[in-house]
């Protein structure tokens, strides 16, 4: 079920009505939320709820065993079982075809004729999110960082909680399960703020991503022609905005909906396009994934404890796997590799150059960071390397005779919107929407809110998916 759909509006109203009715006690409410979460997921493809159940059962069992088992060998076995099941699901459903393709290519390169039928595998929505979330529980249990969930219901709800089930934020057990232990009820302020966040998220998705940016990005990246520089840049900038508004929009909706239930989810984006450098970017973009990768991959790989070279290797490996997490294609690996290289170069430069950030050099460095990020988005969005190569050469002004495929108004629309996006991120980089809203008169805030609702209504989102669902 999509947040930007009529069925979700009805679903949410029913869930809220049941949640705040006096029919259920807290345990009953949690059961209702769990059932609602399965319905939320199952309305897409009912049989795939079974994967959620398996993941839940395996990690609940592994977690309980890890809580009492002292034998280190057996503890490791339970951890490996959890990882085998979760990563096994990912490997089969997400990377099955990719692995088969590359295996075939390898055999063909060796001169062995092999032409298997592609496997007809459905990618379960949000599998990368919930497997990472549930794995974090088992790993934390293994490392004795958390206590086991008190009840199976609390754990199952942690794995399946519908606001963040299919596209995050990827929440750690210590941050979410403990919230289920005592009855939660949003205060009126929380409920109103949650509703406002839901509106902001929908506005980002429906109006900004789908209505204003998606078509331009699709047109440019779908073109088979060598493009004019302005068209290539406009398409890439449009995608940079589209993916931000799409994904941040989903996270904002998720945080808002959870808040309407009195549950607090962590921020997932903090104005990333105002980042100064790439370490800063990853503290602002998809925070729940970058911290997951840091805690469960980069640090176990040695982090910065084993000298510079090992640190750079760990960094590159983390970013390469981070790229692969986003999709089963080599273009995503290149996207990850570029980010890894940026991070390595930045760390190298930091050992040689010290810059005191002020407003002027800050904004220039943020602009430089954003420009370099845009080159990575080309590989993220392009379905083929040839498209990425053409786009990059056009963006580097190497195709002066390239085709002009975008209307003048589309170029103006994207450049204006992206400029506003960048300025907005720069202004907001050290504050939050909540802080800013406190300074605005409630009537003005109400008028702005009404405008957002009006624009959402007249846009009637035709986007059928959030981009990050496929990851």
């Amino acid at each position, binding site marked *: 079920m999509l947040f930007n759909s009529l*069925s979700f509006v009805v679903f949410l109203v029913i869930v809220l009505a049941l949640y705040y009715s006096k029919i259920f006690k807290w345990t009953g409410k949690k059961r209702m939320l769990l059932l609602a979460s399965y319905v939320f997921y199952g309305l897409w493809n009912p049989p795939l709820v079974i994967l959620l159940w398996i993941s839940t059962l395996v990690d609940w069992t592994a977690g309980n065993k890890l809580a009492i088992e002292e034998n280190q060998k057996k503890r490791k076995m339970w951890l490996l079982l959890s990882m085998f099941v979760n990563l096994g699901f990912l490997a089969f459903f997400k990377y099955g075809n990719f692995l088969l393709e590359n295996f075939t290519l390898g055999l063909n390169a060796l001169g062995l004729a092999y032409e298997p039928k592609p496997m007809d595998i459905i990618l379960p929505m949000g599998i990368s999110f919930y497997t990472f979330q549930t794995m974090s529980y088992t790993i934390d249990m293994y490392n004795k960082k958390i206590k086991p969930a008190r009840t199976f219901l609390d754990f199952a709800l942690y794995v399946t909680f519908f606001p963040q089930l299919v596209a995050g934020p990827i929440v750690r057990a210590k941050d979410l399960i403990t919230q289920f232990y005592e009855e939660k009820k949003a205060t009126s302020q929380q409920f109103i703020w949650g509703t406002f966040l839901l509106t902001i998220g929908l506005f980002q998705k429906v109006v900004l991503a789908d209505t204003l940016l998606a078509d331009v990005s699709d047109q440019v990246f779908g073109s088979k022609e060598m493009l004019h520089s302005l068209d290539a840049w406009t398409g890439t900038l449009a995608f940079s905005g589209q993916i931000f508004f799409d994904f941040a929009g989903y996270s904002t909706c998720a945080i808002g909906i959870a808040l309407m239930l009195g549950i607090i989810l962590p921020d997932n984006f903090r104005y990333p396009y105002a980042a100064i450098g790439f370490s800063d970017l990853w503290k602002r973009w998809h925070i729940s994934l970058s911290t997951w990768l840091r805690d469960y991959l980069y640090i176990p790989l040695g982090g910065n404890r084993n000298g510079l070279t090992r640190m750079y290797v760990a960094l590159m490996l983390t970013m390469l796997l981070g790229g692969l997490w986003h999709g089963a294609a080599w273009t995503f690996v290149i996207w990850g590799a570029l980010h890894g290289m940026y991070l390595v170069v930045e760390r190298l430069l930091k050992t040689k150059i010290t810059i005191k950030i002020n407003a002027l050099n800050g904004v220039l460095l943020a602009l430089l960071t954003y420009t370099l990020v845009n080159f990575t988005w080309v590989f993220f969005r392009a379905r083929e390397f040839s498209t990425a190569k053409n786009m990059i050469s056009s963006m580097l002004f190497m195709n002066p005779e390239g085709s002009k495929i975008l209307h003048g108004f589309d170029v103006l629309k994207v450049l204006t919107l992206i400029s506003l996006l960048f300025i907005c991120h720069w202004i907001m980089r050290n504050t939050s929407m909540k802080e800013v809203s406190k300074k605005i008169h409630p009537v003005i805030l*109400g008028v702005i809110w009404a405008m957002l*609702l009006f624009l959402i209504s007249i*846009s009637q989102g035709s986007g059928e998916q959030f981009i990050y669902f496929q990851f």
Partner: protein
Amino acid sequence: MLIAVALSLLSLVAWECYWRAHGKLPDIDDNKDLWAVQRAKVETLSKEDVVLMGSSRVLFDIQLNEWEKETGIRPIQLATAGASPLPIFHDIVNNTDYIGTVIVGVTPGLFFSTTFPEAGPWKRAQTRVEHYENRTYAQRINHCLSMPLQKHLVFISTSEEGWSDDIDLKSLLNSVSLGAERLEKPQFPPFYKFEYMDENRNVRMSDKTANDTAFARTVKNVWQSIVEGNDRPPQKKETTQFFVEDAKKFKARGGNLILLRCPSTGLFKDIESKHLARTDFWQELVKATEAKAYHYADYESLKNLDCPEWSHLSGPDASFFTAELVKIMKADGALTNSKTN
């Protein structure tokens, strides 16, 4: 929050009134969900039922109410504008047990166009077939919930086709032009919606198209642009072979197949006579399928009907065409199962 809700509701009411004052009427979008609802009905049809498929000519020219009045049976409308009927017929033959009547509209430029999966006429139809197979429960619920809104509100106007006069925000922005255009290639002329559709996918040409020649001209401009931009020769052999295979299978299990050629005039008639000649295409298809076949030009009452924009009949003419056609078919015994028989 109260201010937000009150103001947004007021704005929407004003928006709705504004577009109604500009002559807009609530309309159902002919999208893949609406098509899938009709397609689903085929699963439970009996031998007495009728399924229509083809392209927009069947959509416009066969009026479901007239048909029902004449036969007692309301046909299922599966025709898809701008599409080849081949993928849809293939789906019905191979994925259902249906043994009733299938009427396939033959618009030569589309029917004989292609069997290439990525070509527009094929893809438009195949996408709908695939959507029917893959649609989620959430999509079904969304469609059900959207129907009352589409039926009663003008501002709910996002369309799958993307008409130039849609009034959702994206379409309104797409209509903005900066004057001096930077594009080097010639642009497709504006394509305004020229029909109304109901929830059973019954289409009727708008009165404006039938009576306002300047408006009908805008639709003719679009046809002209499509025809001039099409440099692909018809794939007569491949399309005929593909269809005949399914036709034989359908007839072998007891299905009643009828081919129908709807009227065209002006540019379309000229092109169809010159490049898709009846003797070379239509007659060979009829011969190969051994199906009952009706060509509008063979009937005195039908051959002089006018198409205001060269390709489709006006509402009243479509009603007349349907009633006449049913009479002719009944007289031939082609519709042996109609209830009035």
